[in-house]
């Protein structure tokens, strides 16, 4: 049977992040978590392939946090099995370290035909984990897929680049990262949510995968984040008011001409 592994990230919901107005530090600790948007597209695509070909879909996440809720949602969408690789030592891992853990987990999961990832995560948006994972597993990789087909041991992908669509073929096992264009992820039914509670979540920690401490977290990361600050806002914030619409419009027009920002 075909086996598809979908890598998902439990990401911070960036629409609900706040910053401390005086220090400009972000308050991320209590911000809600969710499956990163494009990872959901990857999962949806895997489930569609499963519906066509009868494959097995395993959803995999690597985190230092509790991510069971997010995996339950993935199972409700239609994944057969989930794998949670969780260890406190993974905190502050960069993409070098994260891709290492993902690769080790995938090796332990065994044979696969296809790995699907989102093109990038919504919170850090680095677009690196997919290519890095393909590199570590030494398999072909196709990024930014907007269409995906699988026939025998050949995948055909239409990918979006800046100025062109490329149709690309590769032999499985392969890794594909998908864009938001590829599909509309389903919303699981109540029935599916109830059924998902009975599905298996494999839970491993660093020890189960024999991952040494110096390969993960701050120690295993090449990148060190020195500062994360909300951008400074320095705007004039002038309200333009007036007796009539014409008056307001004229006020604004005069102000813009004075600013010297009008194109002609």
């Amino acid at each position, binding site marked *: 049977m075909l086996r598809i592994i979908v890598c998902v990230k439990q990401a911070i919901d960036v629409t609900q992040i706040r910053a401390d107005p005086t220090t400009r530090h972000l308050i991320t600790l209590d911000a809600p978590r969710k499956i990163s948007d494009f990872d959901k597209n990857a999962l949806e695509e895997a489930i569609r392939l499963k519906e066509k070909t009868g494959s097995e879909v395993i959803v995999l996440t690597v985190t230092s946090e509790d991510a069971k809720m997010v995996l339950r949602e993935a199972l409700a969408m239609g994944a057969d099995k989930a794998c949670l690789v969780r260890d406190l030592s993974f905190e502050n891992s960069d993409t070098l370290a994260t891709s290492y853990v993902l690769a080790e987990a995938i090796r332990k999961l065994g044979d696969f035909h296809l790995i699907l990832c989102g093109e990038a995560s919504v919170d850090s948006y680095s677009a690196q984990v997919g290519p890095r994972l*393909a590199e570590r597993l030494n398999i072909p990789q196709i990024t930014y897929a907007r269409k995906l087909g699988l026939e025998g041991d050949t995948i055909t992908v239409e990918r979006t680049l800046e100025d*062109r669509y490329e149709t690309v073929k590769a032999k499985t096992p392969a890794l594909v990262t998908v864009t938001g264009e590829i599909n509309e992820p389903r919303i699981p039914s109540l029935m599916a949510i109830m059924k998902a509670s009975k599905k298996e979540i494999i839970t491993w920690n660093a020890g189960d995968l024999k991952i040494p401490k110096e390969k993960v977290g701050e120690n295993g990361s090449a990148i060190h984040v020195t500062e994360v600050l909300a951008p400074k806002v320095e*705007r004039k914030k002038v309200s333009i008011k007036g007796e009539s619409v014409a008056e307001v419009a004229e006020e604004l027009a005069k102000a813009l*001409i004075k600013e010297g920002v009008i194109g002609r």
Partner: protein
Amino acid sequence: MKEMSQHGEVWVFSESRDLMLELLGKGGELAQKLQTKLAAVLLGRGVEKGAKEFMGYGAHKVYVVDNPMLENWSSEPCVSALTYLVRQYRPEIFLFGSTRRGKEFASRLATRLETGCVPDCTHLSIDGNGRLLMGRVVYGGNAVATQLCRVNPQIATVPPRVFEKPAYKGREGEVIEVETKLEEPRTEVVEVKEIEAPKVKIEEAKVVVAGGRGLEKKEDFKILEELAETLGGQVAYTRPLCEDRKWFTDWVGLSGHKIKPALYIGCGISGVIQHVAGIRDSKIIVAINKDPEAPIFEIADYKIVGDLYEIIPALTTALKKLLKTS
């Protein structure tokens, strides 16, 4: 006598010529700070002309791998060429253009070399210890993160139009032709469809009039177009108009086009962080919205609370009148 630098070279690579020139500008600055050499990497076939141009724009050296296998930018041959070059000549900093291909190459190279890569940098400088400080937008535009890479080479990717193209210096330099065995591609391109480029790049417009969900119908953009035309500018759209309503295909925002015009006028746009992150560097921001609580007012220079269907045509009329007399 000039002291010999302790630092390895600064390298730049992009498959896009424009980006390459922008990287040469910034890379030159960094190299000067470190008192080291700036080098361009050139992959492909018949690349001599490019080498000359890159030296003209400031490269002391150009490393050339002239091989037809590199011509269509397949990942494996390109990454194997880059890996060989880095292992052989050990640059300290390596900047890539943030195209989709560029980011992929940089990620794969960084993995082979067990180093870090900071994508989409908008700030690059050298800190007190001679390390590269890399700033990038994170959390959907809510913050800027500053990062350091502990390992060499320090790899960063840089989006288009973040840094200025340098002046042509007409300098000459050294061309180093490198031959190495390349890995065979493991993907095969079977078809290419060009995406029709918009006539005017929104990033290049001096004035941008953007419309959001406050516009009821696609046809209503006519009033925004008239205003844009009066101002010698372009019309732009928000993501919901493209993704949800499917009226247009290209939006302005963190996940779309990032713009920094002299004047941005946001009409019927609430100002979610996704959009704001794409317009934040505009010189003057004007916001017109019915809702006085709309977050866009927090980042505006000029704020008008009111009906865009009344204000925009009145503004066009007022501008026409004033521009005629002035």
